[in-house]
Structures are given as C-alpha cells and as structure tokens.
C-alpha cells in the first residue's frame, strides 16, 4: 500500500539555474482497513444485510475505505458483478479500495472494475498461523469452527482504533469490536469507550468504559489515574474527590474480579 504525496514544484525562472525537484514522492505506509467479507453474490441480499450492519454504527463507517474479502465466494454463481457492488458500497458511503482472497478469474474481473488486488494478512490469520505452528491438530479443529456456517451473508471485521491527539471535554470516541489505544490525555468531561480493552498512555481524567458489548474480560490501562468514571462490561465506579491515594495519578489497570471492579497499580 502506498500514498502519493505531492509537494510544490520549485522552478527558478532564470533558465540558466533551473532547479526542479520532483512534484511527487512515493512512500510506503501501513493502514488498518475494515474488511467486508462477502458470502453471497446476491447484491439485493448483500444490500439488505449491509444496511442492517451499518445502521448500528453509521458514523463509524462513513466514508470508510473497505477491502472486500472474497474467500467465501469462490464457488458461488453467478459471478460477482464488481461494478454494481462498487456502486452499492458507495451508495452506503463506503469507499471500496480493493479485494483480497479472490480467485484468478475474480481478480481479473475486479481489476477491470477498477479495484486493487490486496494480499494483506488479517490479524486473525497471523494469530492463526502462529497457532498452527504450535498445534496442528488444534488448528484443524479450529478451521472447522471457523468455516462459514454463518447465516448472514456479511461478516464485518474491524481492527483496533488508535488516536494520537487528546480527547477533550465533550468529545466521545468508541472503538467498536476492538481495542482503543490513546496516546493523548482523556480530559475531564470526555468519554472513551471500546468493546475490547482501553489502553491510555496518558492521564485519564474523564470517563472510560471498556467491554461495552459485555465482555467481562476486558481491561482498562492508564498511565495516570485521575478518572471521573471507569466501567467494565457495565460494572462502573464513579470518583468525586475520592480516588484512593495509592492509585491517584499512578499507572493502573482496571479489571473485573467476579462482579467486583478492581483497580491495581502497575509497577
């Protein structure tokens, strides 16, 4: 994956000392993109399921670039009509950038429709490959589980979200289906949420809610505990001026021990 960066062209008007630096610079960069796994070629059905999926998180996917995964569509007939698929995704304010895991024939059709062919590995796959090295038998069992018995035609997988700027009073941010990594402070009056864990490498002064979809295993990590409220899977605790001194402004982790919310310093 690459970006094209444009820089102003510098041309000196005196022809004898004409200096010309390139107007484009090609650079490599790594992006995390949501993947749209297709398991049907019936675009009406796809649209119906897509509308349903997006209705819960419209703003998070607005104008989001997506990669279409064709893994489950190899034997499907009729062939996928990529041009129509693109129009459908654009209608729902998604920006399709490419396809992955397609057959030779599918890839050719996709290229003709203006898609890029990506060969990225999903995080799941990397973990899976890692596991397979350790335990082949387990891997076989896992593969059977992972095979598409899904009733819906679309599985949307999203990776974790990382934010480098501070979250300010009145702002909210939410990592759906993953972890939220924050490099700037969460200021008083701000709210950060994740279905997975929260990692805050800065002071936490606002509200932090992890395990929003009910995952009791999720945790909150922060570098300076000054929170107004913390919650894991709906179990919350508010702090007025009563943050215990042994954790106040300390690096802590917050997790659930049964129903009990535990806050422990990280040494």
């Amino acid at each position, binding site marked *: 994956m690459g970006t094209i960066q444009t820089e102003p062209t510098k041309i000196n008007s005196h022809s004898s000392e004409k200096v010309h630096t390139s107007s484009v610079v090609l650079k490599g960069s790594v992006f995390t993109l949501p993947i749209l796994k297709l398991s049907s070629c019936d675009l009406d059905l796809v649209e119906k399921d897509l509308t349903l999926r997006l209705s819960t998180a419209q703003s998070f996917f607005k104008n989001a670039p997506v990669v279409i995964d064709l893994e489950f569509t190899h034997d499907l007939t009729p062939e996928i009509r990529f041009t129509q698929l693109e129009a459908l995704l654009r209608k729902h304010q998604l920006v399709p950038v490419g396809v992955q895991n397609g057959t030779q024939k599918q890839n050719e059709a996709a290229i003709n429709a203006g898609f890029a062919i990506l060969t990225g590995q999903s995080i799941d796959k990397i973990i899976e490959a890692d596991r397979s090295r350790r335990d082949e038998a387990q891997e076989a069992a896992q593969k059977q589980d992972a095979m598409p018995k899904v009733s819906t035609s679309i599985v949307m997988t999203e990776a974790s979200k990382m934010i480098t700027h*501070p*979250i300010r*009073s*009145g*702002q909210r941010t939410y990592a759906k289906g993953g972890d939220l990594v924050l490099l*700037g402070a969460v*200021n008083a*009056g701000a709210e950060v949420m994740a279905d997975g864990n929260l990692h805050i490498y800065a002071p936490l*002064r606002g509200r932090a809610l992890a395990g929003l979809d009910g995952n009791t295993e999720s945790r909150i990590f922060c570098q300076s505990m000054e929170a107004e409220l913390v919650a894991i899977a709906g179990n919350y605790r508010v702090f007025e001026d009563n943050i215990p001194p042994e954790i106040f402004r300390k690096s802590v982790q917050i997790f659930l021990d049964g129903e009990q919310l535990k806050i422990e310093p990280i040494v």
Partner: protein
Amino acid sequence: MAKVIVVTSGKGGVGKTTTSASVSTGFAKRGHKTVVIDFDVGLRNLDLIMGCERRVVYDFVNVIQGEATLKQALIKDKRLANLEILPASQTRDKEALTLEGVEKVINQLRETHEYIICDSPAGIETGAIMALYFADEAIVVTNPEVSSVRDSDRILGILQSKSKRAIAGQEPVKEHLLITRYSPTRVQEGEMLSIEDIQELLGIPLMGVIPESTSVLQASNAGVPVIHDDMSISGLAYQDFVARLLGEDVPLRFLDPEKKSFLKRLFGT
C-alpha cells in the same frame, strides 16, 4: 496571505473582547493592515472597548443581509490608520449569521487585510461556531480557574472537529494559549491554578500570560484598548503576546508576585 484568527474561550467574561481589541491594535501598531470583527450579535461590546460605539451606522448583519456594503460598515479606528472594526448588531440575534454570508465577508476582507481577528461570543452555539469556522489560527483565552480551563478544553475539541480546516481535512487550526487575569499572588496562595497546571491540562503551546490589573478595567471604560497603555503591566504583556504571534522570541514576564516595598513591609499594608 491573509490570516484569520479567532479569539475564543467557551466561557464568558474571561477577556475575549479585551484580547481581540488589544491584539488587533497590536498588529496595526506594528504596521499590519488589520480588521477586527465582532461576532457577538445581540450583545455587542467590541465597539465600546475600541471607543467607536457612537460611530456605528451599519453592522455585520446588515452586510450579510445585503443591506449595506462592507465599505459602509467598516469603521476606521481613530488612532491607527490601518485598523478597522466591523461591529456586531445589537438589535438582532445570532441566527442572523449564515455560514455563506460570513464566508463572503471574510473572503472579501482577505483581499484587503493581512489579519482578520474574529471576536467570538461565549458559548458553543451558532455564534461561536461561525466565529471559529473559517479560522487559520485560534487564540484560546483562559483564566486560571477550573471551569474556564474545562470550557477551553471543550472549545479546543470543537476547533478540531467543526472548523472548516478540520472538516476539509486540511492542516489543523493553529492553537495559541493565552492566560488572562493571572494573579501571581493568588497562585502562590493556591487560590488559582498555576501556569504549569493549565498547560498540562490543555496541552497546547502557551503564547502569553496577561496579569490581572485594574488598568484593564479603566482602559475598557475609557474605550482605549489596554495595549496602548505603556504604563500598565497588562498592556506590556499584550505587546509581548503580539510580538510572539508575529514569530518573535520574547520571554514571559510579570509572573512573580510583586515585591512589597520596604515601607509597605514596615507598616504591614
């Protein structure tokens, strides 16, 4: 290239209008053609502080609604030739401003002026959004107290999400922190937040500290921006602030409590 600078804070009464008046005067004094716009439609104050309230005929809303030309509404400052004021309307409300109208006026001013200072109303509603929407830079005015810092944090979030630069994905609005009504004695006694506390909470570059001084109130009442007053520490601090905005490296001053004179110490006053 003209620069649009919004003076904003979220909270009211922290010194936005005082700052707008002094900063625009400061730019003009240093030879830059400057205009200051009052966005506080319905509660106009800038013209009072600039001492031109009796010369307001047409205002910002008249221009937006096509009832007057920009030239008719601009008031020339009585002291500085390259400073103009675009006053707000006292009889209308903030709904009279439209983004299209404001954009038209600002684009027109960009042609003729170097600095366009937008004096924002308090709050986070229409008027404040209009004032910050077209900004290239923002002066965030904060007092050394918790509620003011909280509101400044809120307005910084809005700058980063609702300004034109943020929406268009351009280079973000450049933020400058200005602490006003700073009283070193009260900070020392723990009654006010320290500069370090405020900076840590807001995390944007500190560009100036204006000490609390009675000369600010006197200047406002007299309709003379305090930056004109070379005898006032607030006026001098505003002069320093303007110099820093223009890229000069000027150290902060007036941050230590005033030392009591020998006689005062002797008589305990």
